[in-house]
């Protein structure tokens, strides 16, 4: 326990640059469509991501129908199944999670939480969304292209990704996928530069880096990582396009297909895997870090307690971000790369467990001696801890090179990554939406619907993915449209698969209730007021709710304290807003 003496508000530096006037919209188009307001762009990003996410949800239903009840749905052929898993994976990882966390929450929260009027480059920000939107259109168009979308698996490993034995390999499917990814990365880079520059340059007076909410630290770090990681995917995508269209052989060795020697030679399929995972592993943390940050803030607000070990939390985010660039080949232990790599990558991978564990401890220790309110955002944040802990621990199996060997490419892996980077981040997203919706809409989301949505989603997701580990442990490989007749698999696994499928259908259906709640509450929700959760951070201190373009009205906020002054001894309320100069008189700092 640290001694606490209420300190005079920290020194606030004078304004270094004058407040600038924004480009205000002049008509409907520039206000709602080609908007340069980060908050509108955030909603555009989020809306698009959720819509495309619904496609991924339907695809997961179809996959589970096939796995739970094989030979029942004749329209789900092996080709179709592979197309479903590929599109489901790519949509969820890139077009939903990345876009929603960085494009959605990043845009909405960064300017508001650091006390800025908008992003540093509003015009580029607008372009970022529209290029993302174009990427989504190209992606979705592949469903309607001859031959359908690619079925190469979301990892798109060559040579099969561009060969005729794979759905879409010799048709438009793979081309549209690669073009869409390239567009996504271009769009993201515009947005990402914006988020980084805004955090570094546009913070309010007094908002030092170590006073920033962890949500901002996490989104900031994740954005820096994405800016460094996505180029690897970009070059891999462009090279594969060349291989497919121009007959180059970056990833294509000499090979024979259906008895015919193809015109390729000299390329390296494993080079693609290194490039892909050099992007792909940081990507896991690109979606996990924002969830970490958001959950830290939700727990602190709803337990009315300062986040435990703030400095450690910041360093853990930064260290995880840095380490995540040297662990990528743990996805490739059985890829046939030089086996000596196994020692290095297993070691780095298990080291990353330490800062990650610290984060979990600190969330739980924040609950200790708190004043815990079981609001809907809090429910989701708590559920996040459970699923993330579960998924993180199963990562210790897969990271520890030799234990990975029997489990690699089995359903155990599918269970692991869904728990850790599917369910957990999505629970954080739900928590965040229930938490910030009142600021966005000025209305509360409906509590009853929220509770039903929460319990079905949490218990259901656990019921889907916990038993799935054991399907993999038995030895069932992933990416099999049906188990069929495998001598080592007991009959009873089919019942387990049917159970998982039914749980998946129910959890999916519960999301419809969530979408309904989002729309219904715009009109019928209770008025929220400006700060319904009695939170300290700046976004809750805007003069009006929802905040207008420019956020702050006449005067920019001035920050006197960190983001976690809850239950401060001696204070009247159980929270002190970041722009509250207590115990000094408020007029002293306005100069």
């Amino acid at each position: 326990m640290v001694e606490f003496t209420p300190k005079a508000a920290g020194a606030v530096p004078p304004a270094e640059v004058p407040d600038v006037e924004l480009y205000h919209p002049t008509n409907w188009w520039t206000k709602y469509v080609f908007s340069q307001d980060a908050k509108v762009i955030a909603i555009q990003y989020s809306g698009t991501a959720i819509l495309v996410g619904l496609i991924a949800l339907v695809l997961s239903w179809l996959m589970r129908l096939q796995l739970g009840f094989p030979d029942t749905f004749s329209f789900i052929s092996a080709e179709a199944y592979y197309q479903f898993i590929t599109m489901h994976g790519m949509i969820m990882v890139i077009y939903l999670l990345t876009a929603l966390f960085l494009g959605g929450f990043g845009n909405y929260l960064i300017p508001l939480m650091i006390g800025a009027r908008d992003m540093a480059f509003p015009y580029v920000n607008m372009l970022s969304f529209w290029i993302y939107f174009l990427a989504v259109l190209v992606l979705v168009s592949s469903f309607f292209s001859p031959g359908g979308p690619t079925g190469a698996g979301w990892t798109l490993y060559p040579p099969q990704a561009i060969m005729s034995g794979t759905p879409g390999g010799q048709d438009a499917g793979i081309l549209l996928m690669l073009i869409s990814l390239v567009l996504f990365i271009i769009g993201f880079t515009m947005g990402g530069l914006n988020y980084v520059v805004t955090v570094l340059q546009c913070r309010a007076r007094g908002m030092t880096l170590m006073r920033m909410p962890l949500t901002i630290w996490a989104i900031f770090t994740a954005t820096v990582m994405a800016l460094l990681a996505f180029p690897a995917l970009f070059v891999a995508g462009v090279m594969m396009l060349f291989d497919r269209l121009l007959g180059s052989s970056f990833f294509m060795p000499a090979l024979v297909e259906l008895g015919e020697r193809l015109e390729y030679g000299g390329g390296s399929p494993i080079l693609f895997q290194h490039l892909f995972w050099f992007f792909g592993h940081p990507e896991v943390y690109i979606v996990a870090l924002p969830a970490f940050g958001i959950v830290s803030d939700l727990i602190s607000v709803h337990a009315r307690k300062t986040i435990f070990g703030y400095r450690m939390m910041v360093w853990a985010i930064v260290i995880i971000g840095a380490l995540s660039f040297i662990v990528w080949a743990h996805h490739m232990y059985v890829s046939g790369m030089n086996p000596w790599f196994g020692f290095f990558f297993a070691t780095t991978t298990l080291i990353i467990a330490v800062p990650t564990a610290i984060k979990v401890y600190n969330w739980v220790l924040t609950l200790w001696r708190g004043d815990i309110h079981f609001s809907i955002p809090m429910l989701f944040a708590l559920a996040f801890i459970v699923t993330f802990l579960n998924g993180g621990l199963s990562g210790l199996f897969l990271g520890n090179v030799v234990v990975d060997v029997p489990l690699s490419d089995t359903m155990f892996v599918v269970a692991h990554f869904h728990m850790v980077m599917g369910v957990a981040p999505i629970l954080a997203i739900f928590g965040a939406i229930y938490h910030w919706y009142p600021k966005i809409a000025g209305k509360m989301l409906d509590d009853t619907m929220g509770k039903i949505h929460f319990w079905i989603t949490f218990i259901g997701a656990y019921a889907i993915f916990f038993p799935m580990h054991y399907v993999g442990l038995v030895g069932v490989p992933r990416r099999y449209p049906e188990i069929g007749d495998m001598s080592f698999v007991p009959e009873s696994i089919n019942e387990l698969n049917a159970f998982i499928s039914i749980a998946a259908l129910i959890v999916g259906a519960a999301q419809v209730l969530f979408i309904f709640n989002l729309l219904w509450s715009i009109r019928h929700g209770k008025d929220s007021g400006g700060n319904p959760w009695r939170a300290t951070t700046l976004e809750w201190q805007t003069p009006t709710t929802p905040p207008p373009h420019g956020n702050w009205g006449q005067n920019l906020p001035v920050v006197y304290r960190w983001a976690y002054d809850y239950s401060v001894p001696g204070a009247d309320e159980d929270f002190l807003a970041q722009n509250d100069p207590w115990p000094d008189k408020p007029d002293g700092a306005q100069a």
Partner: protein
Amino acid sequence: MIFAVILVLIVLGSVIFHVFSPWWMTPIASNWSYIDDTLVVTFWMTGIVFAAIVLFMAYCLFRFRHVEGRKAAYEPENKKLEIWLTVATTVGVAALLAPGLYVWGQFITVPDEATEVEVVGLQWQWNFRLPGEDGKLGKSDTDLISFDNPLGLDPDDPNSADDVVVEADDLHLPIGKPVKMLLRSIDVLHDFYVPEFRAKMDLIPGTITYFWITPTRTGEFEILCAELCGTGHGFMRGIVLVDTDEDYQTWLQEQSTFTELTLNDHIKTASRAKP
């Protein structure tokens, strides 16, 4: 309150599921029982950590739930506790990593006496090649693949002549003898996966990869492909039989060498050419 109860139920349910469900690893048939041991140790350690943290959480949620008049403690940091937890975690992680790396060291060190067996994958079947009496596999090249020479062996390499070629048929291995599986693909990525052997490895066109095992139990085991290789991936199956030495020799005698196969083909072609 409900949440605390649910958390306790999740822990209990998970443990009960783990202990009483019928789903566990299929009985092992190779020397890699160390892998199983490491996996079981990992289950124990992670299971204890999971239960401890979730139960602690449940206690907090019950004990510190909001009631009228409660105020949270103000405790931004606790250096001692944070350092203690970091050190304990580091020790735990090291305790998992050390045996893992030790076994990995064995996994990648092929014993000198291991005999070589080549696995050749293509969409969507398994083929095999044994070195024959000279104990050496002849060279191969993707450019030499033809209808008569589906595995692309080099006819000019004297080592190829007595190589035993098993085309799209069962592989047999003798029990108790270490084998080095050399893996080659002529089209896309595949992965040679026999759940009972625990070991698996990708096949990469243009490269030869490997792993080694010693079969420890006779029987018939299924070979699956574990790396997505196109539409037929889920149906790319094969059979490997682990035989007693005697049975193995009998099987081996029945197999054809590369020379015999090409000769036969020539005879067939010749007889077909006759009017």
